[in-house]
Protein backbone atom coordinates (compact mmCIF):
# COMPACT_ATOMS: atom_id res chain seq x y z
CA UNK A 1 0.00 0.00 0.00
CA UNK A 2 2.54 2.60 1.10
CA UNK A 3 4.97 1.56 -1.67
CA UNK A 4 2.30 2.38 -4.25
CA UNK A 5 1.90 5.83 -2.75
CA UNK A 6 5.68 6.32 -2.90
CA UNK A 7 5.46 6.02 -6.68
CA UNK A 8 2.81 8.70 -6.75
CA UNK A 9 5.00 10.96 -4.64
CA UNK A 10 8.04 10.41 -6.89
CA UNK A 11 6.01 11.11 -10.01
CA UNK A 12 4.52 14.22 -8.43
CA UNK A 13 8.01 15.50 -7.63
CA UNK A 14 9.32 14.69 -11.09
CA UNK A 15 6.41 16.24 -12.91
CA UNK A 16 6.79 19.38 -10.82
CA UNK A 17 10.53 19.68 -11.27
CA UNK A 18 10.75 19.13 -15.03
CA UNK A 19 8.88 22.29 -16.07
CA UNK A 20 10.54 24.24 -13.26
CA UNK A 21 14.01 23.20 -14.46
CA UNK A 22 13.15 23.91 -18.11
CA UNK A 23 11.73 27.35 -17.40
CA UNK A 24 14.47 28.17 -14.92
CA UNK A 25 17.25 27.24 -17.35
CA UNK A 26 15.80 29.28 -20.18
CA UNK A 27 15.41 32.20 -17.80
CA UNK A 28 19.04 31.91 -16.69
CA UNK A 29 20.57 31.38 -20.13
CA UNK A 30 18.58 33.67 -22.45
CA UNK A 31 19.78 37.16 -23.35
CA UNK A 32 17.64 39.94 -21.90
CA UNK A 33 16.95 42.87 -24.25
CA UNK A 34 13.42 44.18 -23.60
CA UNK A 35 11.90 46.71 -25.99
CA UNK A 36 8.60 48.49 -26.46
CA UNK A 37 7.42 46.13 -29.19
CA UNK A 38 8.52 43.03 -27.30
CA UNK A 39 6.55 44.03 -24.23
CA UNK A 40 3.33 44.85 -26.05
CA UNK A 41 0.36 42.44 -25.84
CA UNK A 42 0.40 39.82 -28.55
CA UNK A 43 -3.00 39.33 -30.17
CA UNK A 44 -3.16 37.83 -33.67
CA UNK A 45 -0.40 40.13 -34.78
CA UNK A 46 -2.65 43.20 -34.64
CA UNK A 47 -2.23 46.07 -32.26
CA UNK A 48 -4.71 45.92 -29.39
CA UNK A 49 -7.30 48.64 -29.08
CA UNK A 50 -8.88 49.87 -25.86
CA UNK A 51 -9.23 48.03 -22.56
CA UNK A 52 -10.07 44.39 -21.87
CA UNK A 53 -13.22 45.33 -19.95
CA UNK A 54 -15.52 46.03 -22.87
CA UNK A 55 -19.16 45.14 -23.40
CA UNK A 56 -19.87 42.37 -25.85
CA UNK A 57 -22.86 42.34 -28.11
CA UNK A 58 -25.51 40.20 -26.47
CA UNK A 59 -26.02 38.31 -29.70
CA UNK A 60 -22.76 36.46 -29.23
CA UNK A 61 -24.47 34.92 -26.27
CA UNK A 62 -27.49 33.83 -28.30
CA UNK A 63 -25.25 32.32 -30.95
CA UNK A 64 -23.27 30.52 -28.27
CA UNK A 65 -26.48 29.02 -26.88
CA UNK A 66 -27.56 27.75 -30.28
CA UNK A 67 -24.04 26.46 -30.85
CA UNK A 68 -24.18 24.49 -27.60
CA UNK A 69 -27.47 22.97 -28.73
CA UNK A 70 -25.90 21.51 -31.84
CA UNK A 71 -22.67 20.66 -30.10
CA UNK A 72 -24.56 18.46 -27.67
CA UNK A 73 -26.49 16.98 -30.56
CA UNK A 74 -23.24 15.99 -32.25
CA UNK A 75 -21.88 14.46 -29.07
CA UNK A 76 -25.06 12.46 -28.73
CA UNK A 77 -24.94 11.32 -32.37
CA UNK A 78 -21.46 9.74 -32.08
CA UNK A 79 -22.27 7.00 -29.55
CA UNK A 80 -25.55 6.45 -31.36
CA UNK A 81 -23.72 5.88 -34.64
CA UNK A 82 -21.29 3.48 -32.97
CA UNK A 83 -24.02 1.45 -31.28
CA UNK A 84 -26.42 1.63 -34.20
CA UNK A 85 -25.63 -1.85 -35.44
CA UNK A 86 -26.76 -3.38 -32.17
CA UNK A 87 -29.75 -1.15 -31.51
CA UNK A 88 -31.45 -1.30 -34.89
CA UNK A 89 -34.84 0.18 -35.64
CA UNK A 90 -35.42 1.21 -32.03
CA UNK A 91 -32.47 3.59 -32.13
CA UNK A 92 -33.46 4.97 -35.51
CA UNK A 93 -36.90 5.93 -34.23
CA UNK A 94 -35.43 7.32 -31.02
CA UNK A 95 -32.94 9.47 -32.89
CA UNK A 96 -35.60 10.88 -35.18
CA UNK A 97 -37.66 11.89 -32.15
CA UNK A 98 -34.58 13.58 -30.68
CA UNK A 99 -33.73 15.34 -33.96
CA UNK A 100 -37.36 16.34 -34.40
CA UNK A 101 -37.46 18.08 -31.03
CA UNK A 102 -34.15 19.78 -31.82
CA UNK A 103 -35.53 20.88 -35.18
CA UNK A 104 -38.50 22.51 -33.46
CA UNK A 105 -35.98 24.40 -31.32
CA UNK A 106 -34.04 25.53 -34.38
CA UNK A 107 -37.16 26.60 -36.24
CA UNK A 108 -38.24 28.48 -33.14
CA UNK A 109 -34.92 30.33 -32.92
CA UNK A 110 -35.01 31.02 -36.64
CA UNK A 111 -38.54 32.40 -36.69
CA UNK A 112 -37.84 34.54 -33.65
CA UNK A 113 -34.93 36.09 -35.53
CA UNK A 114 -32.16 34.74 -33.33
CA UNK A 115 -30.04 33.86 -36.38
CA UNK A 116 -30.06 37.39 -37.82
CA UNK A 117 -27.19 39.65 -37.00
CA UNK A 118 -28.45 43.08 -36.09
Amino acid at each position, binding site marked *: MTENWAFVAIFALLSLSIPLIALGMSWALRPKRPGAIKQSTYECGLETVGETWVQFKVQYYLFALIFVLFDVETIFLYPWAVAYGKL*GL*FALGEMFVFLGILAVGL*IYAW*RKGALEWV
Partner: protein
Amino acid sequence: MLDLSPDWGVILTHFAPELILVIGALGLLSYDLYVRGKDGLQPWITLGVLLAAALATGWLYTMDPAEVFEGRSAGEVFRSGAFLSDSFTHFFRLMSVLTAGLVTLSGIAYMRGKTAFKGEFYAFVLFAALAMNLMAGANDLIVIALGIEFLSLVSYILTGYIREDRLSIEGGLKYFLYGSITSAAMLFGLTYLYGIAGSTSLPVIAEAVRQPENLVVTHLSTFIVPAALFLVLAGIGFKVAIAPFHQWSPDAYQGAPTPVTAFLSVGPKAAGFAVMMRLFITVFGTPELSATWLGVLGALAGLTMILGNVAALTQSDVKRMMAYSSIAQAGYMLVGIAAFGGTALMGTTPLGAVLFFILAYLFTNLGAFAVIIAVDRLTGSSSVSAFAGLSKRSPFLAIALTIFFLSLIGIPPLSGFFGKFAVFGAAVASDMFGLAVVGVLTGVVSAVYYFQIVKTMYFGDPAEGGALRPSPGVVFVVATALVMTLIIGLVPQPFIEIANQAVTALEPIAGSMVAR
Protein backbone atom coordinates in the same frame (compact mmCIF):
# COMPACT_ATOMS: atom_id res chain seq x y z
CA MET B 1 -29.23 -6.46 -20.39
CA LEU B 2 -31.31 -3.95 -22.27
CA ASP B 3 -34.49 -5.50 -23.58
CA LEU B 4 -34.89 -4.15 -27.09
CA SER B 5 -37.95 -6.05 -28.14
CA PRO B 6 -40.56 -4.55 -25.87
CA ASP B 7 -44.21 -4.37 -26.66
CA TRP B 8 -44.44 -0.90 -28.12
CA GLY B 9 -48.19 -0.72 -27.82
CA VAL B 10 -48.02 -1.27 -24.08
CA ILE B 11 -45.20 1.19 -23.56
CA LEU B 12 -46.76 3.95 -25.63
CA THR B 13 -50.11 3.37 -23.92
CA HIS B 14 -48.54 3.90 -20.54
CA PHE B 15 -46.76 7.01 -21.71
CA ALA B 16 -49.92 8.51 -23.18
CA PRO B 17 -50.27 11.47 -20.77
CA GLU B 18 -46.62 12.42 -21.20
CA LEU B 19 -46.73 12.04 -24.99
CA ILE B 20 -49.82 14.24 -25.14
CA LEU B 21 -48.08 16.90 -23.06
CA VAL B 22 -44.88 16.83 -25.16
CA ILE B 23 -46.74 17.04 -28.45
CA GLY B 24 -49.06 19.68 -27.03
CA ALA B 25 -46.24 21.87 -25.76
CA LEU B 26 -44.20 21.63 -28.97
CA GLY B 27 -47.35 22.18 -31.00
CA LEU B 28 -48.19 25.27 -28.98
CA LEU B 29 -44.72 26.68 -29.63
CA SER B 30 -45.11 26.07 -33.36
CA TYR B 31 -48.64 27.48 -33.36
CA ASP B 32 -47.34 30.65 -31.81
CA LEU B 33 -44.70 30.96 -34.54
CA TYR B 34 -46.91 30.47 -37.55
CA VAL B 35 -50.38 31.67 -36.62
CA ARG B 36 -50.47 35.38 -36.06
CA GLY B 37 -53.48 37.51 -35.43
CA LYS B 38 -55.60 34.91 -33.66
CA ASP B 39 -54.43 36.15 -30.31
CA GLY B 40 -55.93 34.66 -27.20
CA LEU B 41 -56.32 31.06 -28.28
CA GLN B 42 -53.17 29.79 -26.55
CA PRO B 43 -54.66 29.28 -23.06
CA TRP B 44 -57.56 27.33 -24.53
CA ILE B 45 -55.22 25.09 -26.50
CA THR B 46 -53.31 24.57 -23.24
CA LEU B 47 -56.48 23.60 -21.43
CA GLY B 48 -57.41 21.23 -24.24
CA VAL B 49 -54.03 19.50 -24.06
CA LEU B 50 -54.30 19.24 -20.27
CA LEU B 51 -57.81 17.82 -20.56
CA ALA B 52 -56.55 15.20 -23.02
CA ALA B 53 -53.72 14.29 -20.63
CA ALA B 54 -56.22 14.02 -17.77
CA LEU B 55 -58.50 11.77 -19.81
CA ALA B 56 -55.54 9.59 -20.77
CA THR B 57 -54.61 9.31 -17.09
CA GLY B 58 -58.17 8.43 -16.17
CA TRP B 59 -58.15 5.76 -18.85
CA LEU B 60 -54.93 4.30 -17.44
CA TYR B 61 -56.50 4.40 -13.97
CA THR B 62 -59.39 2.20 -15.04
CA MET B 63 -57.14 -0.22 -16.86
CA ASP B 64 -56.51 -3.44 -15.04
CA PRO B 65 -52.72 -3.86 -15.17
CA ALA B 66 -52.86 -7.63 -14.92
CA GLU B 67 -54.95 -7.84 -18.08
CA VAL B 68 -52.79 -5.54 -20.11
CA PHE B 69 -49.68 -7.54 -19.44
CA GLU B 70 -51.12 -10.98 -20.03
CA GLY B 71 -50.97 -12.24 -16.52
CA ARG B 72 -47.91 -10.34 -15.44
CA SER B 73 -48.65 -7.39 -13.19
CA ALA B 74 -47.62 -3.88 -14.09
CA GLY B 75 -45.17 -3.99 -11.23
CA GLU B 76 -43.36 -6.99 -12.66
CA VAL B 77 -43.13 -5.58 -16.15
CA PHE B 78 -42.04 -2.11 -15.23
CA ARG B 79 -40.20 -2.68 -11.98
CA SER B 80 -36.82 -2.62 -13.66
CA GLY B 81 -37.77 0.26 -15.94
CA ALA B 82 -36.69 3.86 -15.54
CA PHE B 83 -40.25 5.14 -15.39
CA LEU B 84 -43.14 3.57 -13.54
CA SER B 85 -46.74 3.95 -14.64
CA ASP B 86 -48.54 2.77 -11.51
CA SER B 87 -51.43 4.20 -9.50
CA PHE B 88 -48.99 6.39 -7.52
CA THR B 89 -47.82 7.98 -10.77
CA HIS B 90 -51.42 8.30 -11.96
CA PHE B 91 -52.33 10.19 -8.79
CA PHE B 92 -49.56 12.73 -9.32
CA ARG B 93 -50.30 12.90 -13.04
CA LEU B 94 -53.76 14.10 -12.08
CA MET B 95 -52.24 16.52 -9.55
CA SER B 96 -49.97 18.05 -12.20
CA VAL B 97 -52.76 18.40 -14.75
CA LEU B 98 -55.11 19.92 -12.16
CA THR B 99 -52.45 22.37 -11.00
CA ALA B 100 -51.54 23.44 -14.52
CA GLY B 101 -55.19 23.70 -15.56
CA LEU B 102 -56.34 25.78 -12.60
CA VAL B 103 -53.27 28.03 -12.85
CA THR B 104 -53.89 28.56 -16.57
CA LEU B 105 -57.55 29.40 -16.03
CA SER B 106 -56.95 31.84 -13.22
CA GLY B 107 -54.01 33.44 -15.02
CA ILE B 108 -55.54 34.20 -18.45
CA ALA B 109 -56.70 37.70 -17.58
CA TYR B 110 -53.63 38.41 -15.45
CA MET B 111 -51.10 37.53 -18.16
CA ARG B 112 -52.93 39.44 -20.91
CA GLY B 113 -50.77 42.34 -21.97
CA LYS B 114 -48.13 41.55 -19.34
CA THR B 115 -45.68 39.94 -21.73
CA ALA B 116 -44.90 39.77 -25.42
CA PHE B 117 -44.12 36.06 -25.11
CA LYS B 118 -47.55 34.72 -24.47
CA GLY B 119 -47.49 31.45 -26.38
CA GLU B 120 -44.25 30.44 -24.70
CA PHE B 121 -45.77 31.10 -21.29
CA TYR B 122 -48.47 28.50 -21.82
CA ALA B 123 -46.02 26.12 -23.47
CA PHE B 124 -43.90 26.38 -20.33
CA VAL B 125 -46.95 25.56 -18.21
CA LEU B 126 -47.35 22.37 -20.25
CA PHE B 127 -43.64 21.58 -19.95
CA ALA B 128 -43.93 22.06 -16.18
CA ALA B 129 -46.79 19.56 -16.05
CA LEU B 130 -44.69 17.14 -18.09
CA ALA B 131 -41.71 17.55 -15.75
CA MET B 132 -43.94 16.84 -12.76
CA ASN B 133 -45.19 13.66 -14.41
CA LEU B 134 -41.62 12.54 -15.06
CA MET B 135 -40.69 13.14 -11.43
CA ALA B 136 -43.73 11.26 -10.15
CA GLY B 137 -42.94 8.15 -12.17
CA ALA B 138 -39.15 8.26 -11.88
CA ASN B 139 -37.72 4.90 -10.92
CA ASP B 140 -34.12 5.66 -11.74
CA LEU B 141 -31.64 8.16 -10.33
CA ILE B 142 -31.06 9.65 -13.78
CA VAL B 143 -34.76 10.22 -14.41
CA ILE B 144 -35.07 11.71 -10.91
CA ALA B 145 -32.20 14.11 -11.57
CA LEU B 146 -33.44 15.03 -15.05
CA GLY B 147 -37.02 15.46 -13.88
CA ILE B 148 -36.05 17.75 -11.02
CA GLU B 149 -33.70 19.71 -13.26
CA PHE B 150 -36.38 20.02 -15.97
CA LEU B 151 -38.98 21.34 -13.54
CA SER B 152 -36.40 23.68 -11.96
CA LEU B 153 -35.38 25.23 -15.29
CA VAL B 154 -39.01 25.78 -16.28
CA SER B 155 -39.72 27.30 -12.85
CA TYR B 156 -36.76 29.70 -13.06
CA ILE B 157 -37.91 30.95 -16.45
CA LEU B 158 -41.52 31.32 -15.35
CA THR B 159 -40.48 33.17 -12.19
CA GLY B 160 -38.43 35.73 -14.09
CA TYR B 161 -40.92 35.85 -16.93
CA ILE B 162 -41.78 39.53 -16.85
CA ARG B 163 -38.53 41.10 -18.00
CA GLU B 164 -39.70 44.65 -17.40
CA ASP B 165 -40.31 43.93 -13.72
CA ARG B 166 -37.19 44.14 -11.55
CA LEU B 167 -38.75 42.06 -8.77
CA SER B 168 -39.58 39.30 -11.22
CA ILE B 169 -36.00 39.18 -12.52
CA GLU B 170 -34.59 39.30 -9.00
CA GLY B 171 -36.86 36.47 -7.88
CA GLY B 172 -35.93 34.37 -10.89
CA LEU B 173 -32.21 34.95 -10.42
CA LYS B 174 -32.28 34.10 -6.71
CA TYR B 175 -34.31 31.00 -7.43
CA PHE B 176 -31.80 30.01 -10.12
CA LEU B 177 -28.69 30.57 -8.00
CA TYR B 178 -30.13 28.76 -5.03
CA GLY B 179 -31.39 25.96 -7.22
CA SER B 180 -28.04 25.45 -8.93
CA ILE B 181 -26.30 24.90 -5.63
CA THR B 182 -28.88 22.51 -4.23
CA SER B 183 -28.97 20.66 -7.56
CA ALA B 184 -25.22 20.21 -7.34
CA ALA B 185 -25.55 18.89 -3.79
CA MET B 186 -28.28 16.51 -4.85
CA LEU B 187 -26.30 15.19 -7.84
CA PHE B 188 -23.34 14.67 -5.52
CA GLY B 189 -25.55 12.60 -3.23
CA LEU B 190 -26.95 10.61 -6.16
CA THR B 191 -23.44 9.71 -7.32
CA TYR B 192 -22.79 8.17 -3.90
CA LEU B 193 -25.95 6.09 -4.16
CA TYR B 194 -24.78 4.95 -7.58
CA GLY B 195 -21.32 4.33 -6.20
CA ILE B 196 -22.39 1.99 -3.41
CA ALA B 197 -24.92 0.04 -5.47
CA GLY B 198 -23.33 0.09 -8.91
CA SER B 199 -26.61 0.98 -10.58
CA THR B 200 -28.92 3.94 -11.05
CA SER B 201 -32.06 1.84 -10.95
CA LEU B 202 -34.03 2.26 -7.71
CA PRO B 203 -35.00 -1.43 -7.36
CA VAL B 204 -31.38 -2.50 -7.82
CA ILE B 205 -30.24 0.03 -5.23
CA ALA B 206 -32.99 -1.20 -2.93
CA GLU B 207 -31.77 -4.76 -3.36
CA ALA B 208 -28.17 -3.73 -2.74
CA VAL B 209 -28.72 -1.74 0.43
CA ARG B 210 -30.76 -4.57 1.91
CA GLN B 211 -27.78 -6.91 1.59
CA PRO B 212 -24.86 -4.81 2.74
CA GLU B 213 -22.36 -7.60 2.08
CA ASN B 214 -23.10 -7.36 -1.66
CA LEU B 215 -22.43 -3.64 -1.92
CA VAL B 216 -19.70 -2.41 -4.23
CA VAL B 217 -18.28 -0.40 -1.36
CA THR B 218 -19.00 -2.23 1.86
CA HIS B 219 -16.78 -0.76 4.53
CA LEU B 220 -18.16 2.78 4.22
CA SER B 221 -21.82 2.11 3.57
CA THR B 222 -23.02 2.86 7.10
CA PHE B 223 -21.59 6.32 6.73
CA ILE B 224 -22.27 6.95 3.05
CA VAL B 225 -25.98 6.14 2.95
CA PRO B 226 -27.06 8.79 5.50
CA ALA B 227 -24.68 11.35 4.01
CA ALA B 228 -25.94 10.68 0.48
CA LEU B 229 -29.55 10.80 1.60
CA PHE B 230 -29.03 14.12 3.33
CA LEU B 231 -27.50 15.59 0.17
CA VAL B 232 -30.42 14.28 -1.89
CA LEU B 233 -32.77 15.74 0.70
CA ALA B 234 -31.19 19.15 0.09
CA GLY B 235 -32.14 18.97 -3.59
CA ILE B 236 -35.67 17.74 -3.01
CA GLY B 237 -36.12 19.99 0.03
CA PHE B 238 -35.28 22.96 -2.17
CA LYS B 239 -38.03 21.99 -4.61
CA VAL B 240 -40.66 21.54 -1.90
CA ALA B 241 -39.30 24.51 0.12
CA ILE B 242 -38.70 22.99 3.53
CA ALA B 243 -36.42 24.67 6.08
CA PRO B 244 -33.45 25.15 5.89
CA PHE B 245 -33.64 25.02 2.08
CA HIS B 246 -36.45 27.56 1.80
CA GLN B 247 -34.65 30.93 1.59
CA TRP B 248 -35.36 31.39 -2.11
CA SER B 249 -39.09 31.03 -1.77
CA PRO B 250 -40.28 34.38 -0.31
CA ASP B 251 -38.37 36.36 -2.93
CA ALA B 252 -39.33 34.09 -5.80
CA TYR B 253 -42.97 34.02 -4.70
CA GLN B 254 -43.12 37.78 -4.38
CA GLY B 255 -41.35 38.54 -7.65
CA ALA B 256 -42.98 35.94 -9.87
CA PRO B 257 -46.11 36.79 -11.84
CA THR B 258 -48.93 35.80 -9.45
CA PRO B 259 -50.21 32.82 -11.53
CA VAL B 260 -46.65 31.47 -11.48
CA THR B 261 -46.54 31.95 -7.71
CA ALA B 262 -49.73 29.89 -7.51
CA PHE B 263 -48.08 27.18 -9.58
CA LEU B 264 -44.87 27.23 -7.50
CA SER B 265 -46.83 26.83 -4.28
CA VAL B 266 -48.41 23.56 -5.42
CA GLY B 267 -46.76 21.98 -8.46
CA PRO B 268 -43.11 21.57 -7.46
CA LYS B 269 -44.20 20.68 -3.93
CA ALA B 270 -46.42 17.81 -5.05
CA ALA B 271 -43.82 16.50 -7.50
CA GLY B 272 -40.99 16.87 -4.98
CA PHE B 273 -42.90 14.90 -2.38
CA ALA B 274 -43.64 12.23 -4.99
CA VAL B 275 -39.92 11.80 -5.63
CA MET B 276 -39.15 11.90 -1.92
CA MET B 277 -41.70 9.18 -1.17
CA ARG B 278 -40.64 6.97 -4.08
CA LEU B 279 -36.96 7.22 -3.17
CA PHE B 280 -37.08 7.21 0.61
CA ILE B 281 -39.92 4.74 1.13
CA THR B 282 -39.39 2.18 -1.60
CA VAL B 283 -35.61 2.10 -1.40
CA PHE B 284 -34.80 3.09 2.17
CA GLY B 285 -38.07 2.21 3.85
CA THR B 286 -37.10 -0.86 5.88
CA PRO B 287 -36.95 -0.36 9.65
CA GLU B 288 -33.14 -0.65 9.79
CA LEU B 289 -32.53 1.68 6.84
CA SER B 290 -35.16 4.23 7.73
CA ALA B 291 -33.49 4.69 11.12
CA THR B 292 -30.72 6.54 9.26
CA TRP B 293 -32.97 9.31 7.93
CA LEU B 294 -36.19 9.37 9.96
CA GLY B 295 -34.65 11.51 12.70
CA VAL B 296 -33.36 14.09 10.25
CA LEU B 297 -36.68 14.19 8.42
CA GLY B 298 -38.62 14.62 11.66
CA ALA B 299 -36.32 17.41 12.82
CA LEU B 300 -36.66 19.20 9.47
CA ALA B 301 -40.45 18.82 9.66
CA GLY B 302 -40.51 20.47 13.09
CA LEU B 303 -38.13 23.23 12.01
CA THR B 304 -40.15 23.86 8.84
CA MET B 305 -43.46 24.15 10.67
CA ILE B 306 -42.04 26.53 13.29
CA LEU B 307 -40.09 28.68 10.85
CA GLY B 308 -42.81 28.91 8.22
CA ASN B 309 -45.56 29.83 10.63
CA VAL B 310 -43.54 32.27 12.72
CA ALA B 311 -41.94 34.08 9.78
CA ALA B 312 -45.32 34.49 8.10
CA LEU B 313 -46.51 36.63 11.03
CA THR B 314 -44.62 39.77 10.06
CA GLN B 315 -45.12 39.83 6.28
CA SER B 316 -46.78 42.84 4.72
CA ASP B 317 -47.06 41.34 1.22
CA VAL B 318 -49.68 38.64 0.78
CA LYS B 319 -47.57 36.69 -1.75
CA ARG B 320 -44.67 36.63 0.72
CA MET B 321 -47.01 35.57 3.48
CA MET B 322 -48.32 32.76 1.28
CA ALA B 323 -44.70 31.73 0.64
CA TYR B 324 -44.12 31.18 4.35
CA SER B 325 -47.57 29.64 4.71
CA SER B 326 -46.75 27.11 1.98
CA ILE B 327 -43.41 26.38 3.68
CA ALA B 328 -45.39 25.55 6.82
CA GLN B 329 -47.77 23.36 4.80
CA ALA B 330 -44.76 21.48 3.40
CA GLY B 331 -43.75 20.89 7.01
CA TYR B 332 -47.13 19.24 7.72
CA MET B 333 -46.71 16.99 4.68
CA LEU B 334 -43.23 16.06 5.88
CA VAL B 335 -44.70 14.97 9.22
CA GLY B 336 -46.75 12.36 7.38
CA ILE B 337 -43.68 10.99 5.63
CA ALA B 338 -41.68 10.94 8.85
CA ALA B 339 -44.53 8.92 10.41
CA PHE B 340 -44.82 6.48 7.49
CA GLY B 341 -44.16 3.44 9.64
CA GLY B 342 -47.21 4.10 11.81
CA THR B 343 -50.44 2.15 11.77
CA ALA B 344 -53.51 3.07 9.79
CA LEU B 345 -55.83 5.65 11.29
CA MET B 346 -59.37 6.52 10.25
CA GLY B 347 -58.87 4.39 7.17
CA THR B 348 -55.73 6.13 5.95
CA THR B 349 -52.21 4.88 5.91
CA PRO B 350 -49.68 7.59 6.87
CA LEU B 351 -48.53 7.95 3.26
CA GLY B 352 -52.14 7.97 2.13
CA ALA B 353 -52.60 10.83 4.59
CA VAL B 354 -49.81 12.77 2.85
CA LEU B 355 -51.42 12.28 -0.55
CA PHE B 356 -54.81 13.25 0.84
CA PHE B 357 -53.23 16.34 2.38
CA ILE B 358 -51.65 17.29 -0.95
CA LEU B 359 -55.00 16.87 -2.73
CA ALA B 360 -56.82 19.05 -0.19
CA TYR B 361 -53.99 21.59 -0.21
CA LEU B 362 -54.02 21.78 -4.02
CA PHE B 363 -57.62 22.99 -4.26
CA THR B 364 -57.49 25.22 -1.19
CA ASN B 365 -54.23 26.93 -2.07
CA LEU B 366 -54.98 27.39 -5.76
CA GLY B 367 -58.36 28.82 -4.79
CA ALA B 368 -56.73 31.29 -2.40
CA PHE B 369 -54.21 32.23 -5.08
CA ALA B 370 -56.97 32.75 -7.64
CA VAL B 371 -58.37 35.43 -5.32
CA ILE B 372 -54.90 36.95 -4.89
CA ILE B 373 -54.40 36.90 -8.68
CA ALA B 374 -57.67 38.80 -9.16
CA VAL B 375 -56.88 41.39 -6.47
CA ASP B 376 -53.32 41.80 -7.78
CA ARG B 377 -54.58 42.32 -11.33
CA LEU B 378 -57.36 44.74 -10.43
CA THR B 379 -55.53 46.85 -7.82
CA GLY B 380 -52.00 46.43 -9.17
CA SER B 381 -50.61 45.38 -5.81
CA SER B 382 -50.36 42.28 -3.65
CA SER B 383 -49.62 44.08 -0.38
CA VAL B 384 -51.95 43.48 2.53
CA SER B 385 -53.35 47.02 2.16
CA ALA B 386 -54.62 46.13 -1.33
CA PHE B 387 -57.04 43.71 0.37
CA ALA B 388 -58.51 46.42 2.62
CA GLY B 389 -62.27 46.55 2.35
CA LEU B 390 -62.44 43.65 -0.10
CA SER B 391 -65.68 42.55 1.56
CA LYS B 392 -67.34 45.68 0.15
CA ARG B 393 -65.57 45.75 -3.20
CA SER B 394 -66.14 42.07 -3.98
CA PRO B 395 -68.02 40.10 -1.31
CA PHE B 396 -67.60 36.86 -3.26
CA LEU B 397 -63.78 37.05 -3.31
CA ALA B 398 -63.67 38.06 0.35
CA ILE B 399 -65.84 35.22 1.62
CA ALA B 400 -64.02 32.73 -0.65
CA LEU B 401 -60.58 33.77 0.60
CA THR B 402 -61.83 33.56 4.19
CA ILE B 403 -63.02 29.98 3.64
CA PHE B 404 -59.72 29.01 1.98
CA PHE B 405 -57.79 30.47 4.90
CA LEU B 406 -60.01 28.63 7.39
CA SER B 407 -59.23 25.42 5.50
CA LEU B 408 -55.49 26.18 5.54
CA ILE B 409 -55.67 26.73 9.30
CA GLY B 410 -57.55 23.44 9.63
CA ILE B 411 -61.06 24.32 10.81
CA PRO B 412 -63.26 21.18 10.98
CA PRO B 413 -65.80 21.00 8.19
CA LEU B 414 -63.23 21.96 5.54
CA SER B 415 -60.77 19.79 3.64
CA GLY B 416 -57.68 21.20 5.37
CA PHE B 417 -58.89 19.88 8.71
CA PHE B 418 -59.02 16.27 7.54
CA GLY B 419 -55.63 16.60 5.88
CA LYS B 420 -54.06 17.83 9.09
CA PHE B 421 -56.02 15.36 11.19
CA ALA B 422 -54.81 12.41 9.11
CA VAL B 423 -51.19 13.57 9.09
CA PHE B 424 -50.97 14.37 12.79
CA GLY B 425 -52.96 11.25 13.62
CA ALA B 426 -50.31 9.23 11.80
CA ALA B 427 -47.62 11.02 13.80
CA VAL B 428 -49.35 10.16 17.08
CA ALA B 429 -49.90 6.57 15.96
CA SER B 430 -46.17 6.16 15.34
CA ASP B 431 -45.25 7.73 18.69
CA MET B 432 -44.07 11.05 17.31
CA PHE B 433 -45.95 13.12 19.85
CA GLY B 434 -43.43 15.95 19.64
CA LEU B 435 -44.10 16.55 15.97
CA ALA B 436 -47.86 16.40 16.47
CA VAL B 437 -47.67 18.92 19.32
CA VAL B 438 -45.46 21.28 17.30
CA GLY B 439 -47.85 20.94 14.37
CA VAL B 440 -50.95 21.74 16.38
CA LEU B 441 -49.32 24.66 18.24
CA THR B 442 -47.87 26.25 15.09
CA GLY B 443 -51.27 25.71 13.50
CA VAL B 444 -52.67 27.99 16.17
CA VAL B 445 -49.96 30.54 15.37
CA SER B 446 -50.91 30.35 11.69
CA ALA B 447 -54.45 31.47 12.54
CA VAL B 448 -52.99 34.84 13.51
CA TYR B 449 -51.54 35.74 10.13
CA TYR B 450 -54.45 34.37 8.14
CA PHE B 451 -56.88 36.35 10.28
CA GLN B 452 -54.85 39.53 9.88
CA ILE B 453 -55.79 39.42 6.19
CA VAL B 454 -59.40 38.50 6.97
CA LYS B 455 -59.58 41.43 9.40
CA THR B 456 -58.18 43.80 6.76
CA MET B 457 -60.68 42.51 4.21
CA TYR B 458 -63.68 43.04 6.45
CA PHE B 459 -62.76 46.02 8.63
CA GLY B 460 -60.06 47.84 6.66
CA ASP B 461 -60.84 51.02 4.74
CA PRO B 462 -60.23 50.60 1.01
CA ALA B 463 -57.97 53.12 -0.68
CA GLU B 464 -60.53 53.39 -3.46
CA GLY B 465 -64.09 52.23 -3.38
CA GLY B 466 -65.00 50.81 -6.78
CA ALA B 467 -66.30 47.27 -7.09
CA LEU B 468 -63.78 44.66 -8.27
CA ARG B 469 -64.94 42.37 -11.05
CA PRO B 470 -62.86 39.20 -11.24
CA SER B 471 -62.39 37.58 -14.65
CA PRO B 472 -64.58 34.57 -15.57
CA GLY B 473 -61.53 32.27 -15.30
CA VAL B 474 -60.88 33.38 -11.73
CA VAL B 475 -64.55 33.02 -10.80
CA PHE B 476 -64.57 29.50 -12.22
CA VAL B 477 -61.40 28.47 -10.36
CA VAL B 478 -62.57 30.02 -7.08
CA ALA B 479 -65.95 28.32 -7.38
CA THR B 480 -64.38 24.94 -8.23
CA ALA B 481 -61.90 25.24 -5.37
CA LEU B 482 -64.68 26.22 -2.95
CA VAL B 483 -66.81 23.25 -3.95
CA MET B 484 -63.87 20.85 -3.72
CA THR B 485 -62.74 22.27 -0.36
CA LEU B 486 -66.24 21.66 1.02
CA ILE B 487 -66.75 18.25 -0.62
CA ILE B 488 -63.37 16.88 0.46
CA GLY B 489 -64.11 18.17 3.94
CA LEU B 490 -67.66 16.83 4.21
CA VAL B 491 -67.23 13.53 2.33
CA PRO B 492 -63.55 12.67 2.72
CA GLN B 493 -63.97 8.92 2.31
CA PRO B 494 -63.78 8.58 -1.51
CA PHE B 495 -60.70 10.81 -1.62
CA ILE B 496 -59.06 8.88 1.20
CA GLU B 497 -59.63 5.74 -0.85
CA ILE B 498 -58.06 7.29 -3.94
CA ALA B 499 -55.03 8.33 -1.87
CA ASN B 500 -54.76 4.91 -0.23
CA GLN B 501 -54.98 3.15 -3.55
CA ALA B 502 -52.22 5.33 -4.96
CA VAL B 503 -49.98 4.49 -2.03
CA THR B 504 -50.51 0.74 -2.27
CA ALA B 505 -48.61 0.91 -5.55
CA LEU B 506 -45.75 2.44 -3.61
CA GLU B 507 -45.45 0.07 -0.70
CA PRO B 508 -45.34 -3.45 -2.18
CA ILE B 509 -42.13 -2.60 -3.99
CA ALA B 510 -40.51 -2.13 -0.62
CA GLY B 511 -42.40 -4.99 0.97
CA SER B 512 -41.77 -7.65 -1.64
CA MET B 513 -38.06 -7.02 -1.95
CA VAL B 514 -37.34 -8.13 1.57
CA ALA B 515 -39.55 -9.47 4.32
CA ARG B 516 -39.96 -6.70 6.86
